[in-house]
């Protein structure tokens, strides 16, 4: 209500504001309330492993590099970077940046942040994302070197905000207030400053007028945890909040009118089925794996269950990932061909196979699995689903206890972040083994030359297509419903970025 009043006032004062804006810095205004499923776990960016927390951290802190709406890396606290040698990444840091407490940002802060998160005793949950960094060396006050043991082509993925422990924290503040200082009273360089955190109730932030990227337009930000989707929608339509996450596709039409609108983006997450080829089963036969690829009408699933949103992928790799080739084609839907292949493989009457999965973890995961089971039934394959509670799933996967067809879900915008863990022999998330592919995946992670890597992954892609160790499906959409006057751009990695957001 207050905000609508403010909108009216702003409208009335439009001319004045426009004049002022032309001469002075942008006038920060208004307030946004964001509802996501879970509350923050901590205000220390290196001490959690949850995206809802990361959404809040990214307003308070910055990383060295950032990702734009198109998924490209852009300068943030580092202005430029280079590779003096294959195992060194050198970053020039941004001048004149200060933390919210006035402390200057410099090379010492970068070194401190990474040394802190890399220390095993610190127990950073996402340490593995930055674990390839052997050391951070100060070259001068505004230059740092990141040293790795071997060439590390995906370094920038380890240094941007989705690598949670890569956000830069203030050394002086932590040294003065103790290692737990950030947990309840965060200090960063970000566009918003911390105001209060009432656990499970709300986190409130206010604009940092001195932000190096320009003062934010929206004056105040409140994050509220609301788990139940229907409650989130009710809050949005009744004007209690301005932005909600994870809207079901069925509600898109009704929320994309009047005072609210829908904003969507393809995520860099991928839905796919993995076939366990390590244990004795029909899935060890390539023809069977191809047959399953032919048997499932992914386009119909996408149309019916996701309202046509999301992006079909040809291989298990997001379409916006490094080395993804737009000319790649998925197997077409062709149940007759599938039956033919099954007969050729020696299973004219089909077979029975278990399916291991979680439920309620990702958008429409259960419905998609049930639909797949329906399609496979039509070519004679009987699937026995085994839905695990997420906690059990984690333990089972670790013990290699997943069987048959598996629905794991994965993300990563480089083949080395997707194919290596999922297909390389012996990786514990891998249910496939192929020496030829292993050699290519090894080669791809040993060089930082982009063109060379593309060529390597083109070969790897051809093998993966032919061998069909997976049934690649799609990148599910990220669906947000927002106040109709909000101008805001979502990101493929689902992290909410309020830099540049404004109410019209």
């Amino acid at each position: 209500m207050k905000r609508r009043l403010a909108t009216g006032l702003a409208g009335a004062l439009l001319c004045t504001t426009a004049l002022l804006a032309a001469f002075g810095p942008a006038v920060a205004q208004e307030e946004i309330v964001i509802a996501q499923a879970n509350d923050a776990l901590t205000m220390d960016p290196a001490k959690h492993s949850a995206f809802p927390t990361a959404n809040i951290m990214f307003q308070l802190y910055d990383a060295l590099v950032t990702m734009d709406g198109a998924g490209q890396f852009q300068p943030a606290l580092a202005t430029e970077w280079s590779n003096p040698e294959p195992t060194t990444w050198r970053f020039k840091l941004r001048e004149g940046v200060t933390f919210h407490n006035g402390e200057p940002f410099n090379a010492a802060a970068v070194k401190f942040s990474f040394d802190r998160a890399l220390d095993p005793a610190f127990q950073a949950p996402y340490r593995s994302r930055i674990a390839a960094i052997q050391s951070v060396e100060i070259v001068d006050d505004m230059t740092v070197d990141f040293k790795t043991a071997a060439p590390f082509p995906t370094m920038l993925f380890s240094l941007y905000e989705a690598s949670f422990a890569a956000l830069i924290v203030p050394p002086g503040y932590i040294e003065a207030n103790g290692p737990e200082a950030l947990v309840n009273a965060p200090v960063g360089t970000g566009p918003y400053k911390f105001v209060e955190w009432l656990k499970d109730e709300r986190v409130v932030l206010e604009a940092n007028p001195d932000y190096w990227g320009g003062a934010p337009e929206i004056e105040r930000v409140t994050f509220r945890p609301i788990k139940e989707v229907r409650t989130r929608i009710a809050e949005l339509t009744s004007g209690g909040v301005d932005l909600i996450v994870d809207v079901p596709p069925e509600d898109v039409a009704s929320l994309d009118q009047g005072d609210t609108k829908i904003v969507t983006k393809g995520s860099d997450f991928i839905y796919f089925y993995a076939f366990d080829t390590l244990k004795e089963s029909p899935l060890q036969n390539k023809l069977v794996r191809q047959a399953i690829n032919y048997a499932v009408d992914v386009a119909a699933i996408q149309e019916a269950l996701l309202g046509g949103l999301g992006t079909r992928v040809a291989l298990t790799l997001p379409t916006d990932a490094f080395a993804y080739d737009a000319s790649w084609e998925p197997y077409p839907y062709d149940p007759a061909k599938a039956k033919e292949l099954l007969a050729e493989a020696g299973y004219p009457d089909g077979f029975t196979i278990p399916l291991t999965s979680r439920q309620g973890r990702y958008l429409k995961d259960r419905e998609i699995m049930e639909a797949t089971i329906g399609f496979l039934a039509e070519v004679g394959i009987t699937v026995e689903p085994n839905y695990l509670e997420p906690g059990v799933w984690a333990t089972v996967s670790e013990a290699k206890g997943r069987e048959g067809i598996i629905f794991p879900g994965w993300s990563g915008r480089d083949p080395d972040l997707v194919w290596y863990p999922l297909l390389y022999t012996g990786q514990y998330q891998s249910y496939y083994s192929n020496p030829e592919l292993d050699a290519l995946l090894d080669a791809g992670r040993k060089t930082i030359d982009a063109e060379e890597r593309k060529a390597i992954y083109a070969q790897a892609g051809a093998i993966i297509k032919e061998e069909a160790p997976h049934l690649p499906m799609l990148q599910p959409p990220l669906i947000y419903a927002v106040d109709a006057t909000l101008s805001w751009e979502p990101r493929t990695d689902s992290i909410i970025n309020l830099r540049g957001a404004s109410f019209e």
Partner: protein
Amino acid sequence: MQGFLAFLRRFARSKLALFGLVIVAIVVFAAVFGRWLVPFDPFAQNILGRLKPPFSEARNGGIHLLGTEALGRDVFSRLVIGAQVSLLVGVASVALSSVVGITMGILAGYEDKYLGRILMGITDVQLAIPFLVLALAVVAVLGPSLFNLIMVLGLTNWVQYARVVRAECLVLREREYVQAARALGASTPRILFRHLLPNVMSSVIVISSLLVAKMILFESSLSFLGLGVPPSTPTWGAMIAEGRNYIANAWWVAAIPGFAIFITVIGINLVGDRLRDMLDPRLKQVEN
């Protein structure tokens, strides 16, 4: 038979209870004979014909009386089959908890020195642990399945039986005929099962009838939290939990099983109340 008819006649003196009995009879009928009566295969999907409103035409002729759900399966057929699953969950879990509870109650009531105290201690421990925590632990260990769900519900709801049965046994064992049996050298199991058990049965029936209703509600709550039966199994609780996501544009998917639970639980409660009034007027404190 004569006695049963007389009982039924006395039962039917309450019109409300008769109404409840009719509801229960319909649900039981659906559960038993439903699989031969349903117009569609409750598991057959048609994702392009999903979320069709009631009385829509099916793709191969026939009418979806109550519409279709999120994967195009017939809601009416699933509702009927769901009656079977929901009732099975209710009855089987009540059977399990009554066996556990009665055993503990009789043992504790017969011998209240050491064993009895330990058993009652266990019931107090059980009472002091929130139901959901126990339920999750069991589901987590065993994985979600119909059998496991029945185990969870059965093993977390026996306390009431134990308490009531024990209280009755403490009174009963002082009665002359039990004393006499003991004096005549009857073995302990014989005393327990021949003399004590039959006398606590009326309380057990009353508790059970009301508990079935409660178990059906529990099942729906667990399904809501994602801890119920596996997704493709149609139980009413799971149907509501899934259907709530479509409530804005396909009300029937959740509203119809919701109404089915509501009316069934009412029916069972009406029958249970009447049984209590008739069998055991002292049992007012038996509450679920």
